[in-house]
């Protein structure tokens, strides 16, 4: 089933990530009556992030189910429905809210297949928004991807553009495991966050296509330094690569695309070529995705690096509200540029 976008035939348009993801959901729902969406504000409102706009009209309230504010309850209910043959999609608008339902996710949904020895599958996809940069402060700006990735039994995908948003959504919806499709709010294409980042919009084929789990994407080839990121830090890295190019530095931009599983071969291939690496992540630094990337290099071939690696991530502070402090805590292109120059000088 795994395949990239068809190279010929059919038409395509430029879409936001929200529309591209929704397109995949609608296509799968039309084919499979066992798929339903459940979450807060998804029917009449169409989702806080517009992921389900118009779907209640097509599929009805039975398949686009507005819930009370009861995340523990409806994640548990969706899990049971999945164990009994349904294929639920659960929306949690802000990843920060997993604080109130983490038990249902990591003690039950993620472990049921294993603890039942494979007797019960949990084919369930969660759609979750993450990230800051718009002054929503510490309870609505987190990434928590490292937190989720720490728990076995969950596949986590983090598309960086509309093309990958659609392809990875198809892949998630066809998988028989608990999958989490996570999009950074700033690249989703939300009406209330200004103009969409251009590099996150993409030409999206109308046909269905899937993108395999665990396959990274090289957005820009380079020879001097590898910039590893996912989601929004791919776009920061692309900007950084432009700035570095102006200074004669050739940066390769590697998008992890899926965090679990992680494409460790792609990381090694790139850093073996460049010899230098900067890992950028908006999530907390401590024990996070950046550490996992560097651990991979340390385990597989520490000699691949000609210079110490540099991490650009949240310096382990709750995301501050005030603009100057938030900007300080979050990664951006300039910080990645500085990191790249630092590793090139050392």
């Amino acid at each position, binding site marked *: 089933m795994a395949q990239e976008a068809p190279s010929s035939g059919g038409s395509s348009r430029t879409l936001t990530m929200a529309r591209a993801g929704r397109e995949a959901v609608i296509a799968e729902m039309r084919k499979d009556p066992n798929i339903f969406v459940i979450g807060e504000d998804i029917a009449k409102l169409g989702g806080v992030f517009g992921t389900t706009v118009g779907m209640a009209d097509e599929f009805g309230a039975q398949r686009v189910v507005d819930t009370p504010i009861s995340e523990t*309850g409806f994640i548990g*209910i969706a899990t*049971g429905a999945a164990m009994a043959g*349904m294929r639920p999609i659960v929306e949690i608008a802000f990843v920060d809210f997993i604080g109130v339902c983490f038990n249902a996710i990591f003690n*039950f949904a993620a472990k049921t297949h294993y603890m039942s*020895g*494979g007797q019960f599958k949990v084919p369930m996809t969660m759609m979750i928004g993450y990230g800051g940069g718009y002054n929503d402060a510490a309870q609505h700006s987190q990434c928590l991807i490292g937190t989720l990735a720490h728990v076995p039994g969950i596949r986590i995908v983090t598309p960086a553009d509309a093309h990958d948003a659609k392809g990875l959504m198809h892949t998630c919806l066809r998988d028989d495991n608990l999958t989490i499709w996570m999009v950074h709010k700033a690249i989703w294409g939300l009406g209330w966050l200004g103009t969409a980042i251009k590099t996150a919009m993409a030409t999206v084929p109308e046909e269905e296509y899937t993108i395999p789990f665990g396959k990274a994407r090289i957005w820009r080839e380079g020879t001097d330094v590898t910039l590893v990121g996912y989601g929004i830090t791919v776009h920061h890295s692309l900007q950084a690569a432009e700035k570095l190019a102006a200074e004669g530095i050739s940066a390769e931009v590697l998008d992890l695309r899926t965090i679990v599983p992680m494409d460790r071969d792609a990381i090694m291939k790139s850093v073996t070529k460049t010899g230098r690496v900067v890992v950028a992540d908006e999530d907390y630094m401590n024990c996070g995705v950046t550490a996992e990337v560097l651990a991979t290099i340390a385990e597989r071939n520490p000699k691949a690096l000609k210079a110490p690696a540099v991490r650009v991530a949240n310096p382990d502070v709750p995301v501050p509200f005030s603009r100057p402090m938030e900007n300080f805590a979050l990664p951006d292109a300039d910080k990645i540029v500085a990191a790249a120059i630092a590793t090139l000088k050392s």
Partner: protein
Amino acid sequence: MKPTPQQRIWMYEAMLKSRRFDDAVFQAYWEGKKPVFHMGKGPLPGEMHQSFGQEPTAVGICVHLGPDDAVGAGHRPHHVAIARGVNLERMAAELFGKKTGLSGGRGGHMHLYDNSVNFFCSGIIAEGMGPGAGMALARKMQKKPGIAVAYNGDGAVNQGAFHEVMNMAALWKLPFVCVIEDNKYAVSVTTQESTVVPAWKRAAGYDCPGEYVKGNDPDLIFEAAARAVQHARDGKGPAILELETERLHGHFIGDSAGYRSKDEVAAQKDPIPLYRKRLLDEKVLTTTAMEALEAKVQQEVDAAMKFARDSEYPAPNEALQRVFA
């Protein structure tokens, strides 16, 4: 609706099977754990929450269920699993951590799953509520027959999941029965100390039927369960059935329950000899038939324990399998 003689015999047999199984497990549990108690030692390692005294709650409900229905139990699941018809040999093997166990040794006694009878557990208090109601939702969405039953202890009703799920189950009229086993203790804290309004009364808050059954009596539980199960089958939504029961042992093997008074413990009644006597007094079974049934049950339990002991352990690296489908 009162149980037929056949149903009463079935209930007695399932209660006895659970008891004899727990007896055998209790005995085996201490192997390798003396003179110094270490929970991780011996052929039956880990925490062990047994069902001594709570057998009536399992049989009084499960006697009404068929193959289309689903059942979720909690951290004290043996009696419910057995009444639901979970394969006893594979269940015993799971407790021993053997390859032939229900989950190949990945679950253990608090996490028994048997897909062939739609049975699951959750060792986290009240966390079976959502999945139970979700199985009810799947039946409703797929227009399939069947209801789902989730077992919880009296301590579970103060978890958020209890309220969240009951509200949605009622809102969406799910074919769901929430069973609360009131064994009067959440580990060491009594129901009185933890709960202002008991679960069955809270049913009013969900506009659904709620009933409390006193006495830990299979025949009385049977009658109340018939009403709750029928309500769910009729598409009228969920029901809460709270059952007085007795925890005759500690919270787990090794808990001496020093927090209970001697008088209180002395006043506890074992439901199994009581029911046995009733079936004999009311001539539901002759003494000969009773003894034959008891011998059969013992044989079955012995065979299950032997199967478990004789089975191989999984290869260590089987730990890596089944994380993902």
